[in-house]
């Protein structure tokens, strides 16, 4: 095992940038995510040589090229499988999976399900722009019904998947949501994920300026944001609105949330409560969309439970239980 003598604690965000020119479209939300990740790395003192960014295919998948860490740009949808192999080979590496809605929930949906279920110690960052960008604008598995695209000229007739609800359903033990433009919130959420041991899943609502511009405007627009988002924090009441004048509580006699004026019976967020996380993950307009760490309940990660030894005697293995001798 190589022991590094360089401490990266003093590194600045720019030290996590590679020498490669960033090639996303001007105005793409991915720039903000790259900036937030580099800031989070600097804040957390991430050690570059111990860190691997793994991606599949798509706009988000270009991410590793722009980081000064180790990086592996793999094939469409398979990054969770490759990252699992990396962790099995070396559990001490800090491994991030950078994916998108098509990469992570369509072609790679199966791998996403299993990597979350196994709880492999990975940070999985899903850039959700509700569209296939790199292939020029087809509807994706998170596109809303009616989305018009080159492959759905009459509008999509499919129901979208909720990334966070999927992750919770798969058994993820850390599920969070943030927004590309919500820089401080995004950095704080990334740092929470970085501190978590096990699979940590973050959905980032990300604007595609070319093919799906303003698709989240009803949630992220300056005017509507206070009413359209609820920023959840552990052990804090679930309040939202310009002056935190509204809250969420359980509808009496029902297992569903309702909006009420801020009052003592507003629910207090408990990030270790899976049923509450599931209710929060499912909120969509006209309810406020939940942002922040919806669920965090760590358990031993997969690769730490793998038992492996070394140094077994090869002669003993090859000889086994029953042999016979042929003499010359």
């Amino acid at each position: 095992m190589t022991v590094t003598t360089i401490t990266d604690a003093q590194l600045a965000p720019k030290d996590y940038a590679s020498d490669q020119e960033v090639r996303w479209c001007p105005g793409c939300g991915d720039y903000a995510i790259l900036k937030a990740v580099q800031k989070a790395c600097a804040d957390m003192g991430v050690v570059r040589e111990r860190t691997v960014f793994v991606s599949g295919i798509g706009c988000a998948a270009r991410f590793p090229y722009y980081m000064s860490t180790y990086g592996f740009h793999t094939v469409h949808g398979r990054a969770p499988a490759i990252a699992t192999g990396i962790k099995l080979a070396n559990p001490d590496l800090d491994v991030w999976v950078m994916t998108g809605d098509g990469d992570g929930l369509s072609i790679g949906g199966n791998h996403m399900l299993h990597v979350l279920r196994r709880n492999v110690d990975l940070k999985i960052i899903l850039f959700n722009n509700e569209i296939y960008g790199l292939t020029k604008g087809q509807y994706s598995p998170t596109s809303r019904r009616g989305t018009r695209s080159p492959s759905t000229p009459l509008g999509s007739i499919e129901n979208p998947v909720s990334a966070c609800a999927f992750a919770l359903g798969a058994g993820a033990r850390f599920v969070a949501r943030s927004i590309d433009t919500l820089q401080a919130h995004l950095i704080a959420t990334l740092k929470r994920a970085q501190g978590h041991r096990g699979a940590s899943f973050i959905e980032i609502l990300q604007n595609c300026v070319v093919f799906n511009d303003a698709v989240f405007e009803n949630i992220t627009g300056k005017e509507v944001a206070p009413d359209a988002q609820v920023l959840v924090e552990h052990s804090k009441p679930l309040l939202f609105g310009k002056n935190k004048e509204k809250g969420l509580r359980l509808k009496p006699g029902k297992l569903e949330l309702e909006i009420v004026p801020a009052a003592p019976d507003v629910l207090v967020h408990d990030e270790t409560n899976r049923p509450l996380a599931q209710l929060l993950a499912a909120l969509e307009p006209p309810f406020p969309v939940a942002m922040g760490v919806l669920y965090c309940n760590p358990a031993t990660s997969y690769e730490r439970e793998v038992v492996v030894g070394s140094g077994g005697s090869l002669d003993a293995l090859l000889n086994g239980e029953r042999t016979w001798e042929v003499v010359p």
Partner: protein
Amino acid sequence: MATSTVPRPGRETRDSVVIRFAGDSGDGMQVTGSQFMLETALAGSDFSTFPDFPAEIRAPTGTTFGVSAFQIHFGGTDVMTPGDAVDVLVAMNPAALTVEVSDVKVGGTVIVDTDAFNERNLKKAGYAKNPLEDDSLAKYQVLKFDITKLTADAVKPHGLSSREAHLCRNMWALGLLLWMYGHERTATIEWLNRKFAKKPVIAAANIAALNAGHAFGETAEMTEHMVGYVVPKATVQAGRYRTVTGTEGLAWGLVAGLRAAGIEKMVFAGYPITPASALLHTLANLRAYGVVTFQAEDEIAASGAALGASYAGALGVTSSSGPGIALKTEMLGLAIATELPLIVIDSQRAGPSTGMPTKAEQSDLFQAVHGRNADAPLAVIAPTSTADCFDIAIEAVRLATKYMTPVIVLSDGYLAHAAEPWRIPHEAELPRFPVTYRTEPEGFHPFLRDPDTLARPWVKPGTPQLEHRIGGLERDYDSGHISYDPDNHARMTKARADKIAGIANDIPLQNVSLGEDHGKLAVVGWGSTFGAIHQAVKIARDEGNDVAHIHVRYLSPFPRNLGDLLKRYDRVLVPEMNNGQLVKLLRAEYLVDAEGFSKVTGKPFRVTDIVQRIRGGAPPPSEGSGFGGEAG
């Protein structure tokens, strides 16, 4: 306990014998065969086995599709195949008789359990009349014993239920066969005591049945029907021996290769598939040797996890059978593009698609050599026998790590399950080829090539100052950065091809397994057909034919002298268990007028199939050559 270690006077001598145990899939024929194999090994004979079992886990009792068989060929002279025609068939029920009897030699012995030939079983097997009561078996020597009753009598003192007693029938049959060939029972008794350690009554009953079968032979010997035989010991290289299946050989070879390369950890990722799963099961028990096994969610993830492990500096290995290998194709492309070591073991089976999962074929050669998008060369090698599986796995590790390339090992369903004696190597005699991970930052870029091998450096993430990015996008020859430059792509395509082609300088020259290096006819094979071709060529040469056997172990790239060698023969014949694949590769590569000889019945070649073809005749009709078509 009466044992007959010394062949008794009156026993007849046989150079070699082929026995097939056949019964219902619940009759324990595989364990019966395996135990007979063990006693044969301990008696000093050479042997080769062929287990043939149905795809159904437990087919309805008494049906023909539920017949499970185990064949063993053993003798004093080099036994290279499980044998063509059967000398002794043990048929535990009518279904086993009807399925297997056509392979018995004229004059061969058929042993049946008369009790099983009742109306119900006869009907299930499709017999209108009882074949034991008409002359339909006249060309065989049929030994009719009420094995069910004889077993029940033997185990009576142990107070078993009739169902439990019935399950001891296979041990009675085994006891009789061990007597016939003068084998010991000690190892079997030890095995029964171990297997049923927690059920001593069952162990005792099985041992009683075994002894009763043996004693039956002993007492019936002087009758006109029962003859004991003696088979001479084989003369083999001195050393310590054990039995080995292809699966075991591959698993241990991978571990030995890991040691040879000095790599700390192997990550073996697989997904359940017949007949490849056995390798996953075997390696799952080898944690103490640095082996991590990972049962992935699918074949794609299995290959991805293996590749990820290689990227991180471990030895990544994945395994499957044809349809699963198809799913790994994409990841092989990435492994080729990123130039990482990856070992892929393909236990080939009959296809296309699901095909016949338990039946062997050699039909993935094209898939292995060419089955990817774009120009995507890699190394392909194939073991020639179960014992060679060990050596080929070590060679796969050597090539994958030295050339930073995926290596496909083409095994098959037959090699996976078949067993042969194997001289156990000492760790000290195994090859050493330690890998070097790059740690030096000075002048580093990820695609800097070794001038000799053209391999790029292997860097473990975790190494300071060597942080770099790789991926499936084309990269610049000189810097490793993403590049869409047209000339660069041409240069990189050539570099990838030259790297694999260069392996030809690092592997043995193609040898001639039998015969001269020139002449009238070369019979060229690959993979598990080695034994059948070798025996056939030997027979044909003894008859005076000018024929040689060449067996190609390295299929991509070919050994560098192969083309010149083939051109020294007037004719080249290529027997394959596929519809003509190697023959087309040879024709394309060397412009030789090679003739194909296909067999696609899901069963291995018989020696006689090939002998007939060498003589110039048509293959014998019963079972035939399967396809018989000319390829190429």
